[in-house]
């Protein structure tokens, strides 16, 4: 078990390095092809070259490799010859970034010179709340719908769940999000806001087209449900199949033969086994939901991690993109590891060597 965890943790290293290089290369290419992001600070005005040069250096975009299209910025010519092992080159921008992150916990700054770590610290509570709402929503509603359908295979309930889940799965989250914002947040919300007897918490807070700082939890409910919707459909499907499979299992027949009540046969013996794949899916889904949060937060204007990534990708702030996405990668990797460990707890037949 301990050795298994260590082996898994070691596997994080190539994954994280690979992700970081990919992010580094993509953001470098963006700068190489579309120009210095620092110029955005000056809007339409043309800055004095010396000032622009100074700011660019300070924000970490001064490396000459960023002017050479296609250069992966791995090595740079060493000043005064020599360099690394006498090759005349020394580690370049990529390695600077790595050492910043891993040796100084320095993820760089954005264009306004705020540390990426501060930006993340400000944004992450919103994303966590959003994820919590999404996961709770998909777990509770998804499992309930799946059990309901699975116990009545072929019935109206089963078909209803099957058809509605296919419908949800086939609609991409950015379409669903925009549609929900337009019809539930704006149109239906306007109807509610026209009624005096409905408290503001509901009409202004919950049914809102976007995040409202006055209602930091209520206004995240609908974005959270949109975020959880697609995985909810998958959860319901998975639960349904799993229940239908287990309800015919021999040990369920044994449980019936033991004279247990139907409630106990289903609720303890069938459900405990049926939920093993569902819970593992929900765990892995935390990672997928993070990706979904990028879209949902942008649509609903939630000041979380996802919107931070979208914004900085637009302005070309590579250090923010690299820093935030690297942190997300670590969270996803850890979540996956925890799920694998949880799997052994749920199913005693699983042992990690």
């Amino acid at each position, binding site marked *: 078990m301990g050795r298994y965890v260590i082996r898994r943790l070691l596997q994080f290293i190539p994954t994280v390095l690979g992700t970081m290089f990919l992010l580094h290369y993509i953001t470098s290419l963006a700068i190489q092809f579309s120009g210095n992001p620092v110029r955005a600070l000056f809007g339409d005005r043309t800055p004095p070259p010396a000032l622009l040069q100074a700011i660019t250096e300070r924000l970490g975009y001064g490396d000459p490799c960023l002017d050479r299209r296609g250069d992966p910025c791995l090595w740079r010519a060493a000043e005064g010859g020599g360099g690394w092992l006498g090759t005349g080159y020394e580690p370049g921008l990529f390695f600077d970034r790595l050492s910043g992150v891993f040796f100084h916990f320095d993820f760089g700054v954005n264009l306004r010179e705020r540390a990426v770590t501060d930006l993340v610290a400000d944004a992450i509570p919103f994303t966590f709340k959003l994820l919590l709402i999404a996961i709770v929503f998909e777990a509770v509603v998804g499992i309930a719908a799946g059990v309901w359908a699975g116990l009545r295979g072929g019935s109206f309930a089963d078909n209803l769940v099957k058809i509605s889940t296919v419908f949800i799965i086939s609609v991409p989250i950015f379409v669903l999000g925009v549609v929900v914002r337009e019809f539930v947040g704006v149109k239906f919300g306007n109807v509610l806001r026209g009624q005096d007897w409905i408290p503001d918490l509901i009409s202004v807070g919950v049914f809102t087209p976007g995040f409202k700082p006055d209602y930091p939890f209520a206004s995240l409910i609908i974005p959270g449900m949109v975020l959880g919707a697609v995985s909810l459909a998958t959860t319901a499907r998975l639960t349904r199949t799993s229940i239908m499979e287990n309800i015919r299992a021999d040990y369920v027949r044994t449980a019936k033969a033991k*004279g247990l009540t139907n409630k106990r046969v289903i609720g303890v013996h069938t459900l405990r086994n049926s939920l093993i794949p569902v819970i593992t899916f929900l765990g892995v889904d935390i990672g997928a939901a993070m990706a979904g949060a990028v879209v949902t937060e942008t649509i609903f204007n939630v000041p979380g991690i996802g919107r931070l990534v979208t914004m900085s990708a637009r302005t070309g702030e590579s250090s923010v993109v690299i820093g935030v996405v690297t942190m997300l990668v670590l969270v996803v990797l850890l979540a996956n590891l925890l799920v694998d460990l949880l799997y052994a707890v749920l199913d005693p037949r699983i042992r990690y060597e």
Partner: protein
Amino acid sequence: MSSDVNVKLDALPGADPNALPLQVKDLHVEFRTRNGIAHAVNGVSFDLRAGETRAILGESGCGKSVTAQAIMGILDSPPGFVTGGEILYRGVDLLKLPESERRKVRANRIAMIFQDALSALNPVFTVGFQLAELFRKHRGMSRQDAKARAVELLDLVKIPAAKQRVNDYPHQFSGGMRQRVMIAMALALDPEVLIADEPTTALDVTVQAQIMALLAELQRERNMGLVLITHDMGVVADVADRISVMYAGRVIEEAGVNDIYASPAHPYTKGLLESIPRLDLKGQELSAIKGLPPALTNIPPGCAFNPRCRYAQEVCRKDPAPPLYQVSPSRTAACHFWKEVKGDE
């Protein structure tokens, strides 16, 4: 058994303690599937006395397991339905009981052992939990008392180091040990009837013998009726008192164990006996019953065995199916030509 917590059940309302512990009369079960109705059990009848072992013998798909599940009331329904007959426990027709009463008969009065103990035990609960559950839910015991009883039960079925093993999961036991756990589970509440559905099929031969010996011993101690469902004629010969041979959902021969082995009165039984390898016939080709059993959705008219029968004549191919002829005061056979079959020996 510690008797301080051993609450004896009240008699089932209407039950006659002098009536037979189990009587099945003209049981019919069908499965309504998309491909038509499968007539799995077509008028099965048998009696079981206290302490008696009744073997139900037949090949796969002849309806023996379905009969057992119908007695327990654990048919998958739909598609399975009991469409006729009576299942009497001490004179009470279980089929007429409401589910809440029927449930209390299971495990308390009639218990069942299944074929493959690995899949029949819940993989995610310890065997202790699965045993203790019976005492907790049927006898209202505390977790601790129930666990203590679980250990006693494992001792009873001769599982070494019961106190430690009670916390193990089913997959941590060997095949034979798992079947012992199943037996412990079935005997937990002291039932009067035990139905064993192919209890040794998944085990190797030496373990089979141990399990059958254990079952026989426990049955003797408790004067329990045993319905032994099997396709293994060797197992039957050792332990059974009476045998019902089933074919295509019917009992086609019913007799004491010695009568059947000495002189079968139905061609199917005869065919089964001839297909047992025998040392004294070494070097000769083993005879087999030609053909396959009929699909239960399409049972041939007349005697269901007629397409495979060397005695079959015109009368066998026409409905109605042959009735159970009284071969002797204590045995019956459903063959028009039982005299020829029997005398042919």
